Every structure is written in C-alpha cells, then in structure tokens.
C-alpha cells in the first residue's frame, strides 16, 4: 500500500507540474552541462506503457511488477553497460486514446529511451506509429500480430507472444484431437478476426469444416441470444474472449449444456485472470492454448520461482494474502522484454538514441537460450516481421484446475512472415 501511494503521488506531482517537471528532471540539464562524461553515466530509462487501471487492471498489476523486478535484478548486478536503469510507468487506463497519449508522455516528458507497451491492442494500434515518429524502440506486448504487421515499423517489436503461434500450433492439434466441425464464437474485434481468419484455412486444409462464425460485440454480457445460433452438429466450439465476459461465456455455455454436446476450445484469454477453482465448475473440460502455464508445476525452474516470489503469488498463481490472480500466460513478457533491451544494448554498444539503428540490427534475428533472463524458454526475435517465436502449451481444465497437457517447442519458421521490416531505413 505504501509503495503504491508513493508512486501515484509522485506521478500526480509530476502531472501537476506539467512541463515544469520535465525541466526539473535531471536529464536535459545534465546532458548539455556534463557533456560526454555525464552521458555515459546517466541512467538508461525504460518506460512502461501499462494498463494499470481500467478493465485490464488485473493484467497491468502484474506486468508492472514483473518489469520492475527485472530492472531491480539488472541494477543489483551493476546495470547495463555500467549504467543504471531507471523505470518510468504511465497508465493507459485500458483506453486506446489515453494509452497513445501516455506513450508520448513517456518518451517526450519522461525521456524514456525504450518503451515496453501495453497488453491492450487498442493503445498499441495507436502507439506503433508514434514510436516510429518519435524514433523510439517499442516492445509491443499485445499479442495481436495483425496490429504490428499493419501499423508497425522497424522500431516496433513483438515482445509478448504472438496469436498466430497459438493458432498455428494449437488448431492442428485441436482438429486432430477434438473434432473436425468448428464453430467460432469471438469478439467482434481485431483479436477475434485474427483467430477466425488464421484458423479457418488450417481447419479446412486438414479436412475439417467451419460451420459458423459468430462475432459478438464488445461489451456483451448476455451470450444467450448468440449461443442459440451455434449449429448443434458442432464438434468444437472455438471461443475468443477475455476478461469478465469470458467468464460469462463459460458460464452460459455450461448453463445450456453445450459442454456436454461439444468440446470447448478457447484462447487462453478466456481463462486468464480468474481462479478456475472458484467458478463453480463452469470451465470444466475446456481446452485452451497458452503462452505460458499459470501454475508453477508446469514450469518449475529456479528463475520462474524467483520471479513468482517477487510477484508474491503461490504455486497456483494466486496472490498471497491478496485478491489478484496472476495473468499466467503473459507476466513473463514484461520481465523478458527488459532483458531483450539489455542484450541488444550489450551487443550493439548502444549509448543513446543516436545508436538506435545498431540496437535494432542487433535485435533482429537474435535468438536466446532459457535462463535467468529468459525464463519462459528458448526463443528468437524473427528479423523480418519482428515476431517473437516462443514455446506454447495446450491446457485442459480438469477438476477445476488448469492442467497443461502438451508443450509445443517453437520452430524457427512456424509460419511465413507477412512483412519485412529489415528493408526499412531507421
């Protein structure tokens, strides 16, 4: 409580001071006065555009802590290339317009050298062009890969998992193991279309069939009117929702007995953020594809343990002495993105934004091994489309618990890149 209060009041203070605060912050003064010497010593500032309040608050809470913990580890070990790392955070309020504005604030007012983006695809969409305009490297944590292929640039990287990976690894498995006749039930938004459009050709190529695609408007609470449209011969009901409505989806499909007639196969967004043991069994027998298991036992390494300890969660991913539930599929990304920055700085000899070109070139195509810095597993930052390639898991709800059944180790080329950013000039 203390900590939170302090930070908020500090941010308030800065806000109230407006541009005055920017003048007061050490950077602009030290640089011209101290010249080249001060530049070496000044901290590297990592900004975090975080969904700290609003409907994704339950995510932002963890992303903020995970990023801070990574920075603490780095500073305790002497920083990056001898320079301390400073963390600045701005809250998107889970709102596209606010989030985009906050990115400008992070870069222009708080002088962030690099920015780790939010999970919400809305602010990310607006932020990608801003990152390019302000020549700042931006690690998008939204997994909506269409956003980065459409609006991205050489400055933007996907650092938080890729939806297309879930589709390319998960859907073939589902066609093989769950059934051939699919019906989609997805949010009427980019994320929903990514799944529907990405999965359909895979299903059809494997001899399966898509019976119906039901798009449901954002903000829908009552799914009954739409559930009635699901063709009864459906074998796999493919759900793409997140947050509270996702719980509504599980509840209502269960209520009308669809769970007995067909397999529910969902994006992990559906499961994320709530405790599956406390929802009265409505998620039972659901299959889900995830970037990372929430429960420790499915990836029990020293480094995962340490991060989870810093986040103060138990083995199940529930906050100790608190109400929050860990966003298991995502939290590792905020941590690892800090280390992508570290690796690329070390490889490129980056000193200031003037060296961004070298930084970007160093990052493009970089592959890393699992360890303290990359706890989720081996992975690569594919050069052309700036997609992160990583391991995935297929989970199943059994006795109200999330059980990760299958791990998919990532392949170098699971699907071809749709864009080539390496040709763009920095």
């Amino acid at each position, binding site marked *: 409580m203390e900590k939170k209060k302090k930070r908020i009041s500090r941010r308030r203070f800065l806000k109230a001071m407006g541009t005055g605060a920017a003048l007061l912050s050490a950077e602009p003064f030290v640089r011209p006065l101290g010249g080249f010497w001060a530049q070496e010593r000044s901290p590297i500032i990592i900004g975090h555009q975080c969904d700290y309040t609003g409907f994704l608050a339950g995510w932002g809470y963890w992303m903020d802590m995970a990023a801070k913990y990574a920075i603490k580890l780095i500073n305790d070990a002497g920083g990056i290339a001898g320079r301390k790392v400073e963390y600045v955070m701005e809250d998107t309020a889970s709102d596209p317009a606010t989030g985009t504005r906050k990115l400008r604030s992070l870069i222009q007012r708080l002088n962030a050298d690099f920015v780790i983006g939010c999970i919400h695809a809305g602010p990310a969409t607006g932020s990608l062009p801003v990152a390019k305009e302000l020549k700042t490297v931006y690690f998008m944590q939204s997994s909506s890969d269409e956003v980065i292929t459409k609006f991205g640039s050489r400055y933007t990287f996907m650092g938080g998992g890729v939806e297309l990976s879930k589709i390319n690894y998960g859907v073939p498995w589902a066609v093989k193991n769950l059934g051939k006749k699919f019906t989609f039930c997805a949010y009427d938004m980019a994320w929903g279309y990514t799944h529907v459009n990405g999965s359909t050709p895979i299903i059809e190529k494997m001899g399966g069939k898509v019976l119906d695609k039901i798009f449901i408007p954002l903000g829908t609470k009552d799914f009954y*009117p739409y559930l009635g*449209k699901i063709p009864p011969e459906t074998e796999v009901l493919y759900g793409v929702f997140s947050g*509270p409505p996702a719980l509504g989806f599980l509840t209502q499909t269960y209520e009308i007995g669809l769970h007995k007639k067909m397999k529910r196969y969902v994006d992990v967004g559906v499961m994320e953020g*709530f405790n599956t043991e406390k929802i009265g069994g409505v998620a039972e027998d659901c299959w889900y594809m995830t970037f990372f298991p929430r429960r420790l036992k499915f990836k029990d390494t020293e480094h995962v343990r340490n991060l989870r300890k810093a986040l103060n969660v138990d083995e199940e991913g529930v906050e100790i002495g608190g109400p929050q539930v860990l966003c298991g599929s995502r939290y590792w990304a905020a941590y690892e993105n800090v280390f992508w920055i570290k690796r690329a700085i070390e490889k490129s000899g980056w000193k200031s934004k003037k060296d961004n070109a070298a930084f970007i070139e160093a990052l493009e195509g970089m592959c890393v091994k699992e360890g303290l810095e990359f706890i989720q597993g081996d992975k690569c930052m594919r050069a052309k489309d700036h997609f992160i390639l990583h391991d995935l898991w297929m989970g199943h709800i059994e006795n109200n618990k999330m059980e990760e059944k299958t791990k998919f180790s990532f392949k170098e080329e699971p699907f071809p890149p749709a864009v080539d950013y390496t040709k763009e000039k920095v």
Partner: protein
Amino acid sequence: MGIEVHLFMNMMNGLVWGLIIALIALGLVLIFGLIKILNISHGEFYMLGAIFGWYLIQYTQNFWLALVLSPLLVAAIGLFIEWGILRPTEDKPIKTLIVTLGISLILQYTVYWFYGGSPQRIVEPFQYHLTLFGSGYSGYRIFVAILSMAVIALLGLFLQKTRIGLWIRAVKQDQEMAIAVGIPTKKVIMITFALGSFLAALGGILAAPIFSVDFLMGLEILPTAFMVVIIGGPGNLMGALGASILIAELEGISSVFVSPTISRVLSLVLMSIVLLKRPEGIFSRARR
C-alpha cells in the same frame, strides 16, 4: 435449433435481461426525477450489490442471505453518499456530474484494492435446468425474471399506495410546493436515493450468477441504463420499464436474423430516433 425455438429462447432472454436492466434503470429514473441529476455513479451500486454479495457468500455460503443483505448494505451506502456528498451540490448540475463521476472512480478502485481485478463467479443458488424445445434453459434465469417482476410490482405499489410513495411522487412534481405542504423533502430524496441504490444492487447480485462479478461491471452497464432512460423518457418510470424490455427484446429478436453487432446498432438507431422525434421519451404522453 429451429428458428422458432431460437426466437422463443431469445424472447425469454430479452425478458430476463430487460428486467434486470429495469431494476437498474428504475433507480436511475427515480433519482433523476427527484433531483434532476445524472448519477454517473449509479452503475457502481449495481457493482457493489454483486461484490458485497460475493463476499457475503464467501463467508456465509448462503445466497439467499446475501440476496437480502447486500442490497440493504448498498442502500445504506447510497443513503450516506446522498446525504454526505451529493446534497451540497444537488442544485448545480455540472458539479453533480463531476462529483458522481468522482464517487464512481473512488468506489471502483476501492473495490479493486480489496477485491482485485479478477472476475469472480457467484454460483447459482440452485442448479435447475429446464428443457425448452429440446434446448437447455436455466431455471435460475426464470427465477430472476419472476423475482424482478415481483420487485417492480412492489415498487409500483409502494409508490402508489404508501404515504412515502405519495411523497416521492409529490417531490418529483413540485419540490417547493412539497415543502410548503409539510413534506420532509430532504429525507424523501435521501430515501429515494437509497431505494434506487437498493434496486441497482439487487440487479447486481441477481445478475452475478449469470455473468460474473468484477470491479468494472457498473461501468459496463451504465450506457445501457442511460439508453433506457433516454428511450423511456427521463423521470418516467413506466417508460423505463417499457424501454428496458424493449431494448433487450429488440437485441434478442433481431440477433436471430442479423449479426449481433448489427442488432446492437439497431438499439442505438432506436435511441437516436427517439431523441430526434420524441425527446420526452417513446412512451411520453401527449399532454406534456
């Protein structure tokens, strides 16, 4: 599922959902009728109803107890908010807008602090599933519909038949004259505010087993509630009831034939037409 069955299911649903919205909108309309404020924080009473319900059920394992206690607790909070925070600003509309927005944020993030950002579920008090035309239908939803109708009928009786009900109607029509005939107007406003909070909270806990419980659920319901108020006519109780069911049925029925997003757009179109053609509400009487 045949189209008639689907249509029938959606009509049932429209009724259930419409009645829950009516509980929320009726409170909003009652309050607006009396003090002419747009209470942005009204959705939070709906949220608090579900949140308190969730906590009470955690501790007592008794849904029925929570169903009674939670709205009462929320009514007490409503009472306090009207008396302590709103009253000094009641005659300044812009101020009330800002103040109620502030109350809304404070309530949301106080709840976030204790309850967290994760949605939770309240399990239905009974698991009875009817089979309607070969498809499952939750018995709990039918219970919600019946209880909501009963509560709305009771509200009507309360307003028509009791002395406080008479006072509420009098204050709504002419506040100054109400004072001049000896009605304790301030207390009446306070009671009405509490009553409105009670209804919203009841809607919240009733809806909880169907949807989920989270700290922003009030924010999500508010646009629909306001839409109902606009279509039904500000301050018009019967209008609000009619509009709630109308909107829910419109979405339910139209979604059988068109895509869900278009059916959502339809209700917005309806609202625009009402705003342009009958700014007093679709059910307004010619007299005024």
